[in-house]
């Protein structure tokens, strides 16, 4: 990311997303935000708090409670020359708009012979950890990454929470941004005048030579912690933050695995048919002869996300499981 100023500001992931929306609204009057409770309420994760006061109800639009309608209307507004940002409360409720996303937004440029493109950004929360049970807590971004015609982003860091949105708005195609629900409170520092970041490259967040830990979004910090844990035993783990789930950055993944010869993929989605499965397949296709151990995956238990805290914690990837999987591929498992 290009940093123009050295002045660093203390902020949170939530504020970084809000700042990104504010910045986009100021830069381009075609940009507007719509969704449920984005106005006075400030969004169900308080991301848009204060924006109604600043930009007014025409540009911060509370909608009737219909995901199909406001996502579909977002597509239409994009066709009509606007640059909408649509907020869906969670990926779980985006399923009510699945037809609009998959059958319309993702296909229409291609089916119309290139005539109608959809410059639409849809933001939504994803993931577990807030005791909201199965119908609020799943990680379905891997599903969306299956669909040609939409770009799928998963900002894990504050820089990406701040920088990906403008790049997404400038993109001529529909872009889905997945904000893990447990990241909103993440604190950190951000340069005062950050610029847009690329939205098609993975980034090595920690360099290491012994094993590649490949992750994104909600499991990113747990994976960084696991790497720190492994370092105590002299194991140098490389941590790759995928950032973009479609397109996937093969180059960064394969380069890393060719150096470390071992890979563990950490993904809060379910194992079967997952994004982790896709990454694993690419490693097998592109670096099979470089591998010293089978690729391992740490995913969620294949059950609908339970409500009770200890059940929910047991169902999703946690630090000990990530550390154990890394040790296993290194053969240092005890």
């Amino acid at each position: 990311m290009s940093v123009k100023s050295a002045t660093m500001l203390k902020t949170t992931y939530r504020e970084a997303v809000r700042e990104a929306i504010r910045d986009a609204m100021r830069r381009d009057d075609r940009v507007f935000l719509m969704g449920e409770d984005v106005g006075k309420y400030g969004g169900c994760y308080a991301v848009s708090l204060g924006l109604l006061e600043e930009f007014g109800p025409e540009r911060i639009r509370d909608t009737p409670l219909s995901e199909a309608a406001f996502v579909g209307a977002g597509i239409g507004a994009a066709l009509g020359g606007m640059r909408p940002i649509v907020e869906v409360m969670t990926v779980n409720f985006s399923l009510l708009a699945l037809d609009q996303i998959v059958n319309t937004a993702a296909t229409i440029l291609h089916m119309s012979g290139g005539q109608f493109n959809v410059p639409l950004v849809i933001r939504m929360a994803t993931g577990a950890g807030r005791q909201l049970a199965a119908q609020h807590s799943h990680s379905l971004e891997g599903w969306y990454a299956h669909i040609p015609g939409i770009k799928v982003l998963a900002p894990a860091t504050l820089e990406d929470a701040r920088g990906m949105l403008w790049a997404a708005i400038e993109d001529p195609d529909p872009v889905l941004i997945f904000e893990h629900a447990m990241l909103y409170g993440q604190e950190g520092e951000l340069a005062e005048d950050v610029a847009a970041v690329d939205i098609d490259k993975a980034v090595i967040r920690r360099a290491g030579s012994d094993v590649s830990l490949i992750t994104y979004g909600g499991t990113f910090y747990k994976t960084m912690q696991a790497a720190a844990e492994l370092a105590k035993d002299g194991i140098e783990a490389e941590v790759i933050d995928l950032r973009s789930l479609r397109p996937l950055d093969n180059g960064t993944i394969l380069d890393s695995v060719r150096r470390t010869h071992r890979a563990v993929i950490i993904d809060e989605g379910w194992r079967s048919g997952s994004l982790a499965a896709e990454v694993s397949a690419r490693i097998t296709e592109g670096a099979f002869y470089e591998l010293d151990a089978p690729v391992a995956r740490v995913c969620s238990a294949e059950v609908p996300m339970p409500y009770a805290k200890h059940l929910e914690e047991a169902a999703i990837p946690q630090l000990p499981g990530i550390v154990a999987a890394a040790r296993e591929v290194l053969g240092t498992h005890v």
Partner: protein
Amino acid sequence: MIKDSPRFEPFSQKPISLLSESGEWIAPFDLDLDEAALKGFYRDLLAARLLDERFIKLQRMGKISFVAPTAGHEAAHVGIAHAVKRGHDWLFPYYRDAGMLLAFGVPATEMMAQMMATKADSHKGRQMPSHPGSQALNVFTVASPIASHIPPAVGTAISMKIRNTGQVVVTSFGDGATSEGDFHAGINFAGAQGAPIVFVCENNRYAISVDYHKQTAAENIAAKASAYGMPGYLVDGMDVLACYYVMQEAVERTRKGLGPVLVETQVYRFGPHSSADDDSRYRPTEEVKAWKQRDPLMRMQRFLEKRGLWTKAWGDSLRNEINEAFSVAIKEAEAAGAIPAEWMFEDVFKDMPRHLKQQLERWRSELSG
């Protein structure tokens, strides 16, 4: 009791009220409920209110992570529960219906255990608080995705019609829910196929922060029924007897094979949307105060008092009795203990498939290793 000629006109401009604010019987027909029945309505209203208060207390104590307050909706809850045949008809409720389930006969211990997710929870710790249900009592488990329970409710009603069981379905939802495709698709389907179902909108004028006028340009929700080819009744949702009598007529009408009905009960949510909400952000406190003046419990109390059926002593003893029963229920629910984490692997399928058995085994060995 079933009247041959209907008592109520659909599509009225003003909500149907049978009790005045001061508790006078103002209906154009004679009251045909006995004393015990009338006192039963009050008892259930009070129980619903006290259950809500208890849930909120438990949430503040940290024993519940979340609650959807129900105060202000009690007249609709109790009116509905009394109009259907318990254990025979089906309910497809939503998350703000705890009082309805209690009045319908779901045991308090089960309600408490669902909120606290202990071993006594029939949902085994898998549902959020305020998402109860009971297979034994034909109460479908509450869905989080708004309005998603409406098409299944219609399908269950159609199964009753096909099998000629004489049962009906009542499904309830908020005003926000009427914007979802599932509402429109479901109610249209019910109309087209003559399903024995009553749709009840508990219109509290807000969907979290979004007020009614942002939700729809329609004057009221009941009016929407006409486009789906069924009667729509607009009811004062603070008047338990109006809710009951209208629901009773709607339920018996649909039971007779005359097709579905839409009922709108105009209620108000006295509390925040949920324990995670601060409602002062989006609605004026004067509005809340004004609606609290119309408390459904107070109206029923005044009505009973005028008939010599309510005394303070009786009210107090009833309150103590209900509170005591809830305390016992909480103790029972807590005594059941915590749910073993490995229960999460059960019920994904009726029989646990191979891959889940493997995951369970691996999970156990990781725990012990």
